[in-house]
């Protein structure tokens, strides 16, 4: 489930472009100039200046955090800073970003300090416990924001590197496909895509890594002429599986692909270049991979990841051998492999792709001068700490991982807080609404401005909120279960398989807790409104605040419930199943026009327009139409329902069929257009839109002519009046 996918679909529906276009262009103005000059001052080169400046800033920061203002002073202070931030955000420049971030950090620190010292109850009772809980949740969010901001302040975006023209210098790649817990169809689909990787065949070896010793997968591997690596003894986790496979293979690079989705054909061409230039680079990965923590510019990455929802890591064998294979530490430090590599002084990189449709490949053959996808520039984000093995920086990174891991719990606290206050009458914020507003509002505004600044190319902050909420519910159960599991058993547990997380992730059954939260917030909203209308004014202020809060929660939760159903729909099509026009030619010579239900699957399902008498296991010819071309395959069919036919394509035709699948899917990222019923969200039906357009076409010339006529007449009239004068 990828809410970003939904967002993208929605944008697609409304005909809005994606990506860079949504960014607001920054101004190049005096502020950018001054700040740039400030950073270029020669003073910074003098010894000790930086230290002194840092000390000054730190003490100023401490002072600003702890100083207590009256309501009006606080108002003046925060309004000034908000105005400064609003002014500065329009300007370009990295220093301006830093300025905005530091303003936000100061204001937030001030808010958190004030919350901890002035708004908690003094006695030990339920109010204190709840208040402390909420405070901790806020503190958690604050720490998380600060650590993640520190990590992605200096993302080094690098352009894709060309490979040498001669493939003689290209490294040999072993592709490991992790098959555990995956269906045969999924494995076949990924393996077929891996075979289609644009890389010389003699230095590309594909291995299926399966822990469950399934005979059918072994047979499949044999027929597809790829290797099937399985250990003699049963390994329950994939890490041991990978380490076993590493020992059995010898390519310079190891690519680890998870089986729940397919790699793009140009994947290796776009990634291996960095290994050739950066001798120090040990590992490259897509953000979702289990071998390393989430990327530093995490949000960006998550956005990018969704567009190619596969997990991928490319590792240099020699360096992996130095750290003794893939690390198999507990789940909370799943970044261990990357950290170990970094500790040895090697760097690791993350991979994002500008997710745009690429042109269709000219042929499926590998050509040395094969095109470089020029409009599709992946970039590399180095961990800012990767090049130095400074311990505290690594610790900060791990700390941030741990914080992110527990993210769902505070989010739940936010969702429950208004209900607790309005329904159970727990007063866990002991202050006046005005003071709370004066502290909290600037904190929220600054956080919003900063996050917009950092991510504006990649996300809308409000929609991101919906997304985070979605994710919280999704991750919560996993968090709790994994935590308990590791605590209780102390066994070395690796990450859960991808399919568990994805299987029916957001259907209504799973959405039930959110329905309950939604109902609670609705109830809180209703009771809060009732309170507002009946009770005294001084209580009302705080109540009003919580009513607004619960209203916000209701909105977010409603949006979350609204996408639950669609999410399931999208999940079903994670593998881009296409509805292509098709034809069945029966043995009698009669034909039937139909559509494919699940095109790239080998067990092709065809939707018939009317019931036909077809005997089970009869031989027919199936044609699939794609881009004005027709591809014909002999197949054996069986009626599944009255209107669904299942066709098995085998023999030599299967190779043609698989090539067709690869060719059809090599068209890049336009697959939302393939989704069925993608127009259902249109506010007006197609026919009406076309009729309206026709009406407009007819009416527009008339209006224009009439306008011209009026203008002429009036113009003449005015001239006459003018002359008379």
């Amino acid at each position, binding site marked *: 489930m990828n809410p970003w996918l939904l967002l993208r679909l929605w944008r697609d529906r409304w005909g809005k472009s994606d990506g860079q276009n949504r960014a607001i262009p920054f101004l190049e103005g005096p502020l950018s100039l001054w700040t740039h000059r400030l950073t270029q001052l020669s003073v910074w080169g003098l010894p000790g200046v930086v230290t002194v400046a840092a000390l000054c800033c730190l003490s100023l920061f401490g002072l600003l955090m702890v100083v207590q203002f009256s309501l009006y002073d606080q108002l003046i202070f925060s309004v000034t800073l908000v105005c400064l931030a609003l002014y500065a955000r329009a300007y370009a420049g990295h220093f301006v970003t830093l300025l905005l971030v530091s303003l936000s950090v100061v204001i937030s620190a001030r808010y958190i300090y004030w919350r901890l010292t002035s708004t908690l109850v003094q006695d030990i009772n339920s109010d204190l416990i709840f208040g402390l809980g909420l405070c901790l949740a806020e503190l958690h969010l604050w720490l998380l924001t600060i650590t993640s901001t520190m990590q992605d302040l200096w993302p080094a975006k690098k352009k894709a590197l060309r490979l040498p023209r001669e493939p003689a210098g290209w490294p040999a790649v072993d592709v490991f496909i992790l098959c555990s817990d995956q269906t045969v169809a999924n494995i076949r689909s990924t393996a077929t895509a891996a075979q289609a990787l644009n890389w010389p065949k003699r230095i590309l070896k594909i291995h299926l890594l399966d822990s469950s010793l399934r005979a059918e997968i072994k047979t499949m591997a044999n027929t597809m002429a790829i290797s099937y690596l399985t250990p003699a003894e049963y390994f329950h986790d994939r890490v041991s599986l990978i380490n076993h496979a590493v020992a059995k293979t010898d390519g310079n690079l190891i690519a680890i692909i998870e089986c729940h989705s397919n790699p793009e054909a140009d994947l290796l061409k776009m990634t291996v270049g960095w290994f050739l230039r950066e001798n120090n680079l040990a590992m490259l990965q897509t953000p979702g991979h289990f071998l390393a923590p989430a990327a530093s510019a995490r949000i960006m990455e998550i956005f990018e990841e969704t567009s190619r929802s596969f997990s991928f890591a490319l590792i240099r064998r020699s360096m992996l051998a130095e750290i003794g294979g893939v690390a198999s530490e507990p789940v909370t430090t799943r970044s261990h492999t990357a950290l170990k590599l970094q500790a040895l002084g090697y760097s690791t990189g993350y991979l994002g792709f500008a997710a745009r449709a690429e042109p269709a490949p000219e042929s499926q053959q590998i050509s040395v001068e094969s095109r470089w996808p020029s409009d599709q520039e992946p970039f590399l984000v180095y961990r800012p700490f990767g090049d130095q093995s400074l311990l505290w920086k690594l610790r900060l990174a791990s700390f941030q991982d741990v914080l992110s891991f527990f993210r769902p719990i505070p989010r739940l606290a936010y969702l429950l807080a208004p209900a607790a206050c309005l329904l159970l009458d727990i007063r866990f914020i002991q202050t006046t609404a005005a003071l709370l507003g004066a502290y909290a509002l600037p904190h929220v505004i600054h956080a919003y401005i900063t996050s917009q600044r950092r991510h504006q190319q990649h996300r809308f902050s409000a929609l991101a909120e919906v997304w985070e909420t979605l994710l919280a519910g999704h991750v919560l159960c996993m968090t709790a279960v994994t935590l308990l599991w590791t605590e209780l058993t102390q066994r070395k547990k690796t990450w859960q398989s991808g399919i568990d997380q994805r299987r029916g992730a957001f259907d209504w059954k799973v959405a039930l807790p959110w329905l309950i939260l939604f109902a609670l917030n609705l109830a809180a909203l209703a009771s809060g409104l009732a309170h507002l209308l009946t009770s005294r004014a001084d209580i009302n202020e705080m109540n009003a605040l919580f009513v607004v809060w619960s209203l916000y929660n209701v909105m977010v939760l409603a949006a979350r419930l609204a996408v639950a159903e669609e999410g399931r729909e999208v999940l079903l099509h994670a593998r881009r199943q296409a509805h292509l026009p098709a*034809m069945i*030619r029966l043995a009698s*010579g009669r*034909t*039937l*026009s139909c559509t494919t239900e699940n095109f790239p699957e080998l067990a092709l399902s065809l939707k018939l327009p*009317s019931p036909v008498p077809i005997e089970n296991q009869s031989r027919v010819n199936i044609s699939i139409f794609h881009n004005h071309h027709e591809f014909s395959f002999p197949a054996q069919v069986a009626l599944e329902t009255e209107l669904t036919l299942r066709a098995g394509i085998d023999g030599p035709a299967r190779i043609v069929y698989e090539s067709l699948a690869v060719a059809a899917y090599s068209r890049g990222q336009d697959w939302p257009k393939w989704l069925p019923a993608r127009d259902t969200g249109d506010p007006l039906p197609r026919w009406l839109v076309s009729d309206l357009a026709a009406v407009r076409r007819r009416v527009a010339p008339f209006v224009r002519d009439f306008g011209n006529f009026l203008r002429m007449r009036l113009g003449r009239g005015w001239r006459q009046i003018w002359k008379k004068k």
Partner: protein
Amino acid sequence: MSVVGVVSMKGGVGKTSLTANLAAALSTKLGSGRVSVVDLDPQNALHWHFGIEDPETNGVCQQSLRGDDWRGVALTSAFDVDCLPYGAASEVDREAFEALLSAKPDWLGEHIRQAGLDEDRVVLIDTPPGSTVYLKQVFACADLVLIVLLADAGSYATIPAMESWLDEMSSVYPHLRSIYVLNQVDRSDSFNRDVADLLQRHLGERLAPIGIHSDEAVSEALAFQQPVLAYDPYGQASHDLAQLAAWMITTLNR
């Protein structure tokens, strides 16, 4: 009014079936009373496709020899297509008719105009194969000429003759549009597929984007005296015909 001629250099390419079925498909798209077919083929077979028994009245041949217009000849069918049959003409009548045609190159166009058809009619004309007087008449009055081909060696061999004929005609009628249509395509047959690809390469844009797949339903439909769209609406041939009709409407409107 749009006049569409259906021609071929070689017999047996399914021209008459295509004319009838395409007329039925056009009628489904355009609505009733919008499509007429004129049979200029002395085989006098077109009306069978619409379930019309051999007519009592004369066809276009005798009617024309008598010097009358065609108003009385049109027969309505159950498939919303008006059919003007050639008529069961004797050999003498046919020769006389052909002599009449060769004397006046614009004769057909005049008669269609005089037939009292509405402005928004589409008239499809079926012709005998080869370069005949009928073909000349069609080229003189048609807005669009469909040249029917099979993906086989015979059709391929006739292309040069057709091309030189087209060159000649396009110098006389510069606004004439002609397009090749591939009939009875079967890509599961390797020879058929290869010739189809060859034709596609050779003709390029001049081959219609939609070919009609070979389908037993087409022959069966004739046995039941129905257009294939009525006989087997879900077959591929019906599907292709409907698409071809849609494409033709766009082409004619352009």
